[in-house]
């Protein structure tokens, strides 16, 4: 790799064709390693609260594929055409300054998720050491979690010094954990099948359609949260043809498959965490394997997340000239601080926080889809993405497109009206429509109508 190429994949600059060397296999490996992490158990456990194993698995599978195609249609075209990340792809809609809104969503979402995963990573490593007899159980071992968090951050930092190559390298090593996860699923399903079929979800509503839709909604929401990650990965592929199957099969499919582990575990053994139930099912040897799996899974995902977040930060002018090392430190520092100082508090409050963040990605996708396919009909001004100046197309008004901000707010309100993500209180239409799809549609409609006024004002660089 030349220095120019290395510099490019450590920046938010557009990648040229000769720099985008990831083929379908490499992209699939990287995306699969990114997608497969502890959150799959949490997603599976959530679905297992409302649906049984088969119904839950199918609803989750459908939801994940629907959510993924929305993300692909939203960020995919611009990212893959110009080799840019998700945040840069939002500049035509939000403006040459308004893009800080999606950037903030990306930063908060990725830092939040990565903090969760890195704490899981540290806890799993402690449990693994105890299972191997390296450490004694007790408070002294638990006190190692902050230290291991720092070690994990240091390893990720070292791997990412090589830019996207570091992400790919980590993925090549860790992709085996996806198969270990499938083996764990086979183990549970083959040994507890009758119990699995007979298990009753604990929080199921009397309304079967509501339960089923909630399974679909959880799948859609899970894959919509890939928006911040996807651009940084697919920009390394040479064209649109290369990305579709890797994204749909490498990023969308592993989530419902591995979520089945959490779904089955929560239904049969009342625990979504395989590190707990594999000891029950198969003894200490299986527990060690599962702990290794959890450790590897979270490490791979966090590496990709830190990379995507660092690339997103590059869009800030003040950070464009900073070294890649500085940028990595800025990105990793919040994760390390959370892991060191407030790991337990973060665990306790994280679900509520993430639910609110997740509400925004459906409207964001709706806005991007209608902007690219309907309003711009695929015409993007690459210079206007990088130049913040009144004469440029995406300057709108002081660098902000009010239509996008109003549409985003309308989409968020629509989501909360259809389904309150904290209380799970819903409207009567929710069982028929989900919440993410109406939120995306409402944002798209408001953006379309608002853009008609923007076009009339001669802003935004829309084609005649």
């Amino acid at each position: 790799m030349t220095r120019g190429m290395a510099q490019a994949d450590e920046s938010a600059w557009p990648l040229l064709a000769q720099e985008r060397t990831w083929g379908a296999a490499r992209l699939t490996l990287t995306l699969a390693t990114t997608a497969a992490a502890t959150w799959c158990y949490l997603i599976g456990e959530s679905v297992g609260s409302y649906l049984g194993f088969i119904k839950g698995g199918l609803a989750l599978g459908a939801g994940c594929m629907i959510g993924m195609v929305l993300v692909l249609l939203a960020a995919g075209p611009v990212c893959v055409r110009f080799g840019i990340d998700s945040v840069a792809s939002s500049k035509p809609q939000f403006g040459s300054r308004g893009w800080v809104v999606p950037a903030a969503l990306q930063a908060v979402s990725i830092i939040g998720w990565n903090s969760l995963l890195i704490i899981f990573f540290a806890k799993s490593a402690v449990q693994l050491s105890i299972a191997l007899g390296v450490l004694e159980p007790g408070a002294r071992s638990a006190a190692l979690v902050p230290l291991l968090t720092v070690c994990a951050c240091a390893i990720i930092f070292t791997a990412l010094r090589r830019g996207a190559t570091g992400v790919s390298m980590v993925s090549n090593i860790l992709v085996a954990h996806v198969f270990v996860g499938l083996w764990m699923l086979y183990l549970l399903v083959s040994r507890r099948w009758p119990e699995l079929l007979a298990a009753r979800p604990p929080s199921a509503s009397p309304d079967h359609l509501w339960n089923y839709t909630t399974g679909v909604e959880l799948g859609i929401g899970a894959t919509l949260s890939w928006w911040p990650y996807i651009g940084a990965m697919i920009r390394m592929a040479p064209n649109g043809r290369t990305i579709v199957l890797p994204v749909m099969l490498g990023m969308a499919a592993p989530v419902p498959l591995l979520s089945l582990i959490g779904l089955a575990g929560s239904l049969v053994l009342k625990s979504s965490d395989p590190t707990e139930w594999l000891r029950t099912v198969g003894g200490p040897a299986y527990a060690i394997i599962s702990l290794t799996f959890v450790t590897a899974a979270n490490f791979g995902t966090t590496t990709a997340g830190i990379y995507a977040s660092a690339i997103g930060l590059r869009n800030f002018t003040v950070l464009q000239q900073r070294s890649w090392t500085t940028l990595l430190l800025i990105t990793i520092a919040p994760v390390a601080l959370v892991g060191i100082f407030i790991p337990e508090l973060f665990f306790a409050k994280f679900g509520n926080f993430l639910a609110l963040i997740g509400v925004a990605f459906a409207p964001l996708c709706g806005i991007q889809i209608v902007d690219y396919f309907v309003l711009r009909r695929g015409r993007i001004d690459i210079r206007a993405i990088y130049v913040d100046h009144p004469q440029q197309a995406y300057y709108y008004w002081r660098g902000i497109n009010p239509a996008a901000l109003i549409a985003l707010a309308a989409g968020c309100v629509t989501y909360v009206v259809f389904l309150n993500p904290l209380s799970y209180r819903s409207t009567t239409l929710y069982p028929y429509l989900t919440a993410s799809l109406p939120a995306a549609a409402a944002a798209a409609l408001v953006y379309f109508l608002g853009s008609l006024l923007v076009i009339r004002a001669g802003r935004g660089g829309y084609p005649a």
Partner: protein
Amino acid sequence: MTDRSPSSALPLAPSPAAPAAPLPPELEARIAAFERAAPAPDFDKSGWFWMMLLGVAIPVVLLIAGWWA
């Protein structure tokens, strides 16, 4: 005392008459390369086919199968 001189203020929005700040040469070269080349396509027919199959048709089948399961 707080310094309220222009030099300490937040940067103002550039005026339409003022020229845009020059881009880093490497970025300028990259943008120029895209502007010279024919617009790159996004998804081809096979991409759309797989997207519709995996993102629409199969989810519909899964939804129907799951509902009757």
